[in-house]
């Protein structure tokens, strides 16, 4: 039993140790360096030829090409959290005890052990010296409070005990940020949608994956605009969006690159834009009869071919199909039924023999383009935790820097010869700031000046 306990204790000690902290910090840093040198998100297949097979297999095994999402990276973060928690549990009770302790007695012999200390002999009487000392310390640091002490008069001034709690705030903030990040990645989503002008959709394609989700409402892009500087460089991208819910327009708003729209926890960001097809004018020539029909097809909408029971639709638009330039993906079928055949029609090569669907030879007479806006769509229910962590972290580090726990002790012992006194001061600062050192020196100088040993002689002469 006792053996097991000591093992547990050892494990806890290790988990609370600063060594582990350093290990985790350096490992995280090293991993992050690899992550920036190796392009993330490229598959190992794409890396073939760039690296030797052994290196590629290492990359593959450790997941170095998607490093920040690997399980070992998560384990490192988890280790950091554990380290913090155990360390806090270990130290917080001691700190609180320290904060609560009321110092009541003091041994004047301890004085010389502090990092700042000074002593002065004076001819003044202990009472006179006490008055001077109180005044001087009060001016530099604050009022002195008397302590019980044997054979001497001792007093203390203390400030900023609470500053010892600040690092706990910083540490808690790290946990909050990581917790918020976890919540966001588990409960939120991230994707994008490309909305042509005039189109309405509620379908978001997930980043990376080939899946999509349906929002409980729809978004319409009323207008997309790019404005340029005189130099031709882009100045502003702007989309006018409308949120449509249950067939009603519930919100109209324009978004810019730094100015997104949020509705029901889902935020839409202006991320990219592009051109897409608006409609195309095509000529259909019936191969049997030689009859030609001309019609205008809006992109992705079914139209009935006049005088027939067939409908036709541009299902897809390709900017550059196999280096033959733009192409329309046409599909054809009976009205009211699914399309049963389809084919790519090359826009710039009307003579191409493959420009046909079923019984029709097709020529594209004209295409009209329109813009689409690229929206990044996100829901992150963890972000407020992260922000809370941010605030706590800044307040914590700021106060860690700007505050410190300072203590000044002062003692007066009666002089050995029966007259005069020995005055000693000592100081300690949790954060050895130049300010503290300076104040202490100033105090020493003032005391040297006011408690001069010469005063002793003057006093004696007067007698």
């Amino acid at each position: 039993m006792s053996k097991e306990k000591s093992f547990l204790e050892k494990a806890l000690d290790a988990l609370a140790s600063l060594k582990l902290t350093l290990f985790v910090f350096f490992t995280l840093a090293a991993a992050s360096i690899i992550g920036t040198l190796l392009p993330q998100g490229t598959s190992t297949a794409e890396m073939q030829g760039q690296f030797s097979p052994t290196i590629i297999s290492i990359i593959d095994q450790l997941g170095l090409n998607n490093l920040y999402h690997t399980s070992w990276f998560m384990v490192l973060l988890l280790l950091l959290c554990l380290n913090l928690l155990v360390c806090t549990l270990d130290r917080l009770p001691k700190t609180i005890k320290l904060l609560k302790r009321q110092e009541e007695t003091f041994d004047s012999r301890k004085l010389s052990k502090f990092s700042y200390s000074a002593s002065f002999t004076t001819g003044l009487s202990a009472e006179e010296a006490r008055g001077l000392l109180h005044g001087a310390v009060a001016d530099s640091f604050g009022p002195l409070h008397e302590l019980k002490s044997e054979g001497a008069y001792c007093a203390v001034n203390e400030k900023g005990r609470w500053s010892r709690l600040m690092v706990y705030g910083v540490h808690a903030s790290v946990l909050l940020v990581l917790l918020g990040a976890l919540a966001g990645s588990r409960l939120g989503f991230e994707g994008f949608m490309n909305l042509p002008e005039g189109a309405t959709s509620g379908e978001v394609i997930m980043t990376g994956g080939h899946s999509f989700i349906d929002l409980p409402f729809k978004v319409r892009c009323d207008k997309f605009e790019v404005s340029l500087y005189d130099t031709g460089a882009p100045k502003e991208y702007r989309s006018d969006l409308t949120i449509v819910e249950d067939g009603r327009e519930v919100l109209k708003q324009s978004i810019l690159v730094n100015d997104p729209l949020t509705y029901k926890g889902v935020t839409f960001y202006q991320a990219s834009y592009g051109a897409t097809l608006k409609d195309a004018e095509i000529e259909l020539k019936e191969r049997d009869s030689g009859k030609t029909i001309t019609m205008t097809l809006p992109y992705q909408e079914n139209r009935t071919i006049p005088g027939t029971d067939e409908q036709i639709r541009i299902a897809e638009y390709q900017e550059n199909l196999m280096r033959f330039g733009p192409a329309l993906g046409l599909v054809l079928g009976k009205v009211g039924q699914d399309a049963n055949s389809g084919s790519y029609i090359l826009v710039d090569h009307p003579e191409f023999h493959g420009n046909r669907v079923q019984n029709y030879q097709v020529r594209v007479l004209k295409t009209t383009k329109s813009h689409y806006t690229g929206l990044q769509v996100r829901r992150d229910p963890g972000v407020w935790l992260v922000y809370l962590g941010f605030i706590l972290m800044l307040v914590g580090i700021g106060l860690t820097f700007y505050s410190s726990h300072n203590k000044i002790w002062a003692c007066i012992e009666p002089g050995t010869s029966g007259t005069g006194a020995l005055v000693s001061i000592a100081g300690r600062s949790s954060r050895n700031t130049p300010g503290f050192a300076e104040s202490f020196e100033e105090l020493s100088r003032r005391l040297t000046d006011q408690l001069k040993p010469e005063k002793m002689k003057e006093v004696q002469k007067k007698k």
Partner: protein
Amino acid sequence: MTSSLLLSITTFVYLFCTVLYLSGLLFHYGRLLTAGTLAGLAALVIQMAGVILRWVESYQLGYGHAPLSNLYESLVFASWAIMLIYLIFEWRTKQRTIGVFPAFFAFLAMAYASFSTGIDSKIQPLVPALKSNWLIAHVITCFLGYAAFAVSFGLSILYLMRKASPDNPKPKSGILSALPDARQLEMFNYQMILFGFLWLSVGIITGSVWANSAWGKYWSWDPKETWSLITWLIYAALLHARNMQGWKGQRVALLSMIGFGCVLFTYFGVNFLLSGLHSYAR
């Protein structure tokens, strides 16, 4: 009077300031050090006038943005921040002997900004991604952090020299004897690093909040972001290592120098070698 004239003058005043600090240290002559401080102060004021004028000029050109938008402008701000932080430090600690490095770094930043052929000093319009008030908060805070780390880098070099000198702890002669003792240097260095850590944290957080409001992600592992995190981790490690046996002193000084190497890589390396959201700074 144009901003570029003022900024050219600044470059030379920084050089002069470096020479003054260095000769003050070499010849143990306090007045030269005082002159160094005055030159540093003058450079700071001229540079600030130059930066403000550049801001006004950008409005006259019809762009109207704070001069913090490209590599040139950020270098100018970096050199200004280094001198500002150093002078505040000097005033707080009454130590003039450590001004050589900060003055030299401020000069280097200005000289690189002005004379490198790869850096365009023209006032350019802002690309849409940078049009945000967060830009100012983000750049200023990051660079305050970087500047503090630059000063700390100089302090670390002096500390290591001091430690390595044969008659440590109290050298009797030479440049080193004019310096504060090693214990004091360590303390100054620590204060400077904690200060830098504070501002780097503010910088990363403002960048993160900005990214969230602009792109909907507060963290996307973009190379620049990641490198600033690496820098942050190194300095966090340093702050903790200081509480560990055998680390305080030389190892911490070395870590601070490594940390500053990370700062430089975050600043230049990422722009020139890696690509990502921040590559506009090219």
